[in-house]
């Protein structure tokens, strides 16, 4: 089973989880960690270490809010064969991960499906509809 957590600037991760839970009408098995604006990241590192140790033997995906941001840079340190990081998570990506269609037995295949869902969730509506808007 793939374990997941979301680490973000501020409470973005908590809010994403709450909205996804409301839409899917179920409690989601995901932990959120907020980056402490005043801190140096050590608290986030400690929480990540604790989470990974507690889920030893599982594959773990860490969702972050933005590639190159502190949460993402910290998460990158933990990448190994059992831990992967997906940056720029958004609501479509979250829904993809927790919906039946996003889950496969293969770790990287699941993450790629979520990545695709997150990217496909970004559209300029007029272009999507095939209309021109100057």
């Amino acid at each position, binding site marked *: 089973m793939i374990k997941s957590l979301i680490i973000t600037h501020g409470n973005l991760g908590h809010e994403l989880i709450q909205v996804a839970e409301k*839409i899917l*009408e179920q409690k989601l098995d995901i932990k959120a960690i907020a980056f402490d604006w005043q801190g140096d990241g050590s608290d986030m590192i400690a929480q990540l270490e604790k989470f990974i140790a507690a889920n030893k033997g599982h594959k773990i995906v860490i969702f972050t809010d933005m590639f190159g941001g502190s949460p993402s840079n910290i998460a990158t340190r933990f990448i190994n064969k059992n831990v992967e990081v997906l940056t720029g998570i958004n609501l*479509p990506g979250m*829904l*993809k991960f927790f*919906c*039946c*269609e996003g889950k496969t037995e293969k770790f990287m295949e699941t993450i790629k499906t979520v990545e695709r*869902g997150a990217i496909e969730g970004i559209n300029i509506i007029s272009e999507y509809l095939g209309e021109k808007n100057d």
Partner: protein
Amino acid sequence: MIEKTQIIINKLGLHARAAAKLSHLANMFNANIFLIYNEDKVNAKSLLGILTLAASVGNEIILQASGDDEQEAITAISDLFNRKFDEES
């Protein structure tokens, strides 16, 4: 393969929570199930796919299913639409 025309009668149309319920229900069946609206055909088992239809109240869509439990699938999904996704009294 069977098809059924379905009118969307809930006020908010195929919005996120309705799409989540619909995809969850569709995933309970073995049949391949599609929703067809205008030129678009999407997998009813995909929440994000359903959302791309942007179908609203009053719109007419086609439910299409093929597989051993196609009839049960169409009946259950049509019932969900007719119950307004259990979101309105």
